[in-house]
C-alpha cells in the first residue's frame, strides 16, 4: 500500500509502515465483541477454520452436517468452525507534560499509530484517547475499523500535542466513560504518577479490556546523571523538591524505579495483560520489531 516515494506520515517511514501492515496484535486472551470480526473466537463459528465435531441436534443448520462422516458412521455430526469476532483496540496515549521530555510523546504517538494500523488492518475497532489539556485540540479518536480509518488515525496522532497534568489514572477513567467494548487497552505512558493505579487497572479489566502497559521513559529518567544539590521542579505541577547531594541518591532512585516497574508489571500481569518498559531513545524499529516482537506483543 505504501508508496516508497511519498511519505504517508511523518510519524515513521513508509518502509516501517510496510512492515507494520504485516503485523498483528497478539492478545493473551480473546476478549472480543460478538459482532463479526476477524478474530477467531473460541466458540463455534462460521469461519473456514475447523474447530471440532459434535452430535447433531434438532434445529441445527443442516449445511454444517459432515456428510462424509454420516456416510461412514451413519450418524449425523455437525462440523464446528471457529467464530470470527470483532476486537476493540483502545489506545490510551498519555499526553501530559511529563511525556514531552526527550521524544517520549513522539515515541508514544508512533507506537499508537503502529498499534492502530495493526488493529485496523486486522479489522479491529480501533479508538485512541489522548489525555492532554490543550484547548480546542482533539483528544479522542472514536472507535472505527477498516483500512480507510488509517488516514484518520494518522492524522489524529500527527496533530496530537502534549501538555497538562492529567495523570494516567484519570486518563483511564475518562477513557472508560466513553468506551464500550472488549478487547485490548494499550496504555502508552511513563506511569509517573503519585497515585495508585490498582483501581484504574481493575476498571479496565472489568470492562473486558486486556491491559497492555507500555512505559516510555527518557534516558534522563532511566539513568539520571546528577551531582550536588539541586531543586527539582515538577514539569506538570510546578512543585519543587530540594535534593541534597543527588549523586548519592541515584542508587536509591534506581531501586525505587525498579520497584515501580515491578509493581506496574505485576498489576498488568495479574489482569491477564502485558507490561514493558522502553526508552524513548530507542528507535521505533528496535521497539516494534525487536523488543515487542520478542515479548510476543505483536506477531509478524
Amino acid at each position: 500500500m505504501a508508496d516508497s516515494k511519498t511519505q504517508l506520515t511523518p510519524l515513521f517511514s513508509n518502509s516501517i509502515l510496510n512492515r507494520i501492515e504485516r503485523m498483528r496484535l497478539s492478545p493473551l486472551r480473546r476478549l472480543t465483541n460478538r459482532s463479526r470480526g476477524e478474530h477467531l473466537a473460541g466458540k463455534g463459528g462460521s469461519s473456514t477454520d475447523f474447530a471440532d465435531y459434535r452430535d447433531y441436534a434438532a434445529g441445527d443448520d443442516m449445511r454444517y452436517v459432515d456428510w462424509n462422516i454420516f456416510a461412514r458412521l451413519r450418524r449425523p455430526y455437525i462440523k464446528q468452525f471457529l467464530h470470527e469476532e470483532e476486537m476493540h483496540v483502545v489506545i490510551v496515549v498519555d499526553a501530559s507534560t511529563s511525556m514531552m521530555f526527550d521524544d517520549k510523546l513522539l515515541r508514544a504517538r508512533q507506537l499508537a499509530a503502529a498499534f492502530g494500523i495493526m488493529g485496523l488492518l486486522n479489522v479491529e475497532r480501533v479508538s485512541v484517547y489522548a489525555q492532554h489539556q490543550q484547548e480546542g485540540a482533539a483528544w479522542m479518536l472514536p472507535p472505527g475499523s477498516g483500512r480507510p480509518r488509517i488516514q484518520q488515525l494518522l492524522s489524529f496522532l500527527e496533530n496530537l500535542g502534549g501538555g497538562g497534568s492529567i495523570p494516567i489514572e484519570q486518563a483511564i477513567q475518562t477513557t472508560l466513560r466513553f468506551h464500550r467494548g472488549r478487547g485490548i487497552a494499550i496504555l502508552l505512558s511513563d506511569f509517573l504518577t503519585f497515585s495508585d493505579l490498582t483501581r484504574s487497572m481493575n476498571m479496565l479489566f472489568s470492562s473486558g479490556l486486556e491491559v497492555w502497559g507500555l512505559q516510555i521513559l527518557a534516558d534522563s529518567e532511566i539513568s539520571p546523571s546528577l551531582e550536588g544539590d539541586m531543586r527539582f521542579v515538577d514539569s506538570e505541577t510546578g512543585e519543587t523538591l530540594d535534593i541534597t547531594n543527588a549523586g548519592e541518591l541515584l542508587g536509591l532512585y534506581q531501586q525505587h524505579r525498579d520497584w515501580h516497574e515491578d509493581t506496574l508489571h505485576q498489576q498488568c500481569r495479574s489482569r491477564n495483560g502485558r507490561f514493558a518498559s522502553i526508552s524513548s531513545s530507542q528507535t521505533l524499529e528496535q521497539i516494534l520489531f525487536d523488543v515487542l516482537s520478542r515479548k510476543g506483543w505483536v506477531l509478524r
Partner: protein
Amino acid sequence: MSFPTFTFVQGAWFFLAFIPLVVLYFLKLKRPRVEIPSLALWQSVVNDQRVNSPFQRFKRNLLLLLQMILLLLLILALMQPFISAGPETTDYLPVLVDCSASMSSVVDETGRTRLDVAIEQAQGMIDNLRGEGKIALFSFASGGRRITEFTDNKRILSRGLEQMKPTHRASKLDEVLRMADAYSRTAPVEKVVVITDGNLNDRVDFELPFELDIQRVAEGGDNLGITEMSARRSGPQTWDIFVRISGSSEDPLLGDLKLFQDGRLIGKEAVSASTEDAERIVFSVDTDKEALLQALLEVGEKDSLSIDNQVWLTLPKPRPLRCRISPELYSWQHAAGVQSDVDIDAAKDPTAPEYDVIISDSEDLKGVTAPVNVYNGVVPDDLSDLISVTDVDVASSDIQIVDWTRTAHLLRHVRLRDVQIGQQTAYAEGATSQDLEERGYEVLIHGASGPLMLQRRRGLETDYYFLFNTDRSTLPYRIAFPILVSNVIQAGMSQASLSEISASPTGVLPPLNMEADRQYKITGPDGSSDTVNSTSTGRLTGVPAATVGKYDIYDDGELVASVGTGLLSQLETSLAPVEELKFTEVEVRTDTAEMVESDLDLWWSLAFAAFLFLLLEWWYFQRMKTEVTA
C-alpha cells in the same frame, strides 16, 4: 597536660548562633533548578532517605559542615581557651622569691641566672591568676622585703618582678616567712610558695602556720669562691692573712688567688678546691699602719658565681690594748701587767673616755665605756631581787664551784675545781636560772646555791659579772687566774680587732671608730652613697653594705677610711641545695618543681584554623559553583 579551659566561658552563648546558621543555610541555599518530568519517583526516594537517615542531609552537606566548623572554631577562639601550664592561682598566694647571692649563679650558656629562672616561674604563676586569686610578691635574702601587696593586677606584679635583683647576701628564710605570716592575717592564705635554688640553711626557726610549697629552680654550673678571710697578728707589725677557698663541684676547680694591699699586689697563689676539699691560703703582711686588703680570686669560665670572688679586709693600725682596772684590784692588775701590748690604767679616775677592756669592782664605770667589761664582786642592780650575796667563813664553810661553761670565751682552759670562795650567792626564794636568762643574763659558773658568774651581751659590748669578789676566794692563787685574765685580754683585743680580725660579710659594715658626732658620707662599690652620723663616742655603726666591694668614707669630701665586704658564705658559694628544710615541727621537702610556664593560649591557633577552613570553604564553594555552571 591538662584539658583546655576557657577564659571567657560566657562566650559559649554564641553557640546559639548555630541555629540561625543552619536555618539560614537551608533558606538561602542557592540550588540549581532542574525541571524533571515528574517528582513522583524522586519524592519517594527523598521520603525513603529521610526515614532511613534523618540527619543525612547534615552529614552529607559538606559546605554546611565547613561553615559549622568555621563557626565552632570562631566561638572557641572567642572563649579564649588555654592549656594551663601549671596549677591555677585561685587563692591568696604569697610568693617568696629567693634573691640571695647564689641566685646570681649562671645556669646556662645564655647567661641566665637562677634568679632569671625564678622570675620566669613566678611570672607563670602571675599569668595563671584566675578568678579571685591574688598574689603578693616578696623577695628575700638574709632579710625579707615585700614587693607588692596582694593584688590580681598582673601589670603591677610583673613590674614587681622586674624590681627583683640579686643581692650579695646569704639567704635566710626565717624573716620573710614571718613577714608572710603577718600578711596571712590580713588575707586568707593557705599556702606560701617559695621559689629558691634550695641554697638555704636546712634548719628554719619558724613554726609553719600554712602550707609551704618550695619550688626549686634548676641548679647552675660549678663555682669557686672565697668563703673566709681573716687576719691574725703574728708580730707587732705583722699579720697572717688566712683565705679559705671553697668549690661547689666534686672535681677540683682551679683559680688564682691574688692579695692586694691598698691596691698593690702583694701575693698570688694558685688554688684549687672542691666540695670535699677546701683550700686555705696564708699570706704574711707587714704594716705599721691601717691597711686595706683585697683578696681576689680569678677563675676561668666555669665559675658561675662571680660575687664571691673578692673579699675586703681592713687591718687596723697596731696599738697596745687599753685596759682600765680598778685601783683596788691588785690581783687583776698584776695578772694583766704581765701580758704584752697592754696599757693598764689603774688610776683612781679614768684617764681616757674609752677603753678596750674595763675590769671594775663597781658597776659604776665613771662614764667610760669598753666593749669588754668585767665586774668583780658586783651583782647587777636589775638582779638584786633574784640574787643575794653573803660573806661566809671559808674555814667553816665549803663554798665551791659546782660547774662552769667551759666553752665560754672567758673560761677557756680555765680549771675552777677546788676553788674556794668566801662569799655565798643564793637565789631568792622561787628564783631560778631561767629568771636570769629572761633578763638577758647567762650563768657561766654555777655554785652550790646560786650563780657565781654571769655574762650579758649588750649589742657589741659584753659584760662579765663575778658575783663574788675574786679576792675573797682562792682563785687568784690558782693557775687558772692568769689564764682567765689572759682570756679577758684576748677578748678585749679581739673586740678591738687588735689580735684577730675577720673580713665582714655583706649586710652592714663593721663598727668604725671615727670622730664623735660628725656626719660621714659613705660611697659604696656600686656608686650609691649614704650619709651616717657617728655617735657621741665616735662609733660609726649600722652602715648598710648590701654589695660586695669597697666602701669609702668621706668627711667633708675628704677620704678618711676605706672598708670592704665580701660574700663570705660557705653555703652560698657551695651552690648546693638542701633536700629538706627542718622547721620547728615539720619538715618540708624542697623538690625541684617543673618550670611553671605561661598558659598556652589556643585562641590564635583556633583563629588560624578558622581562617584555613574559611579558605577551604571558599575553594569548595567556588568548585561547586563551577560544576553547577558547567
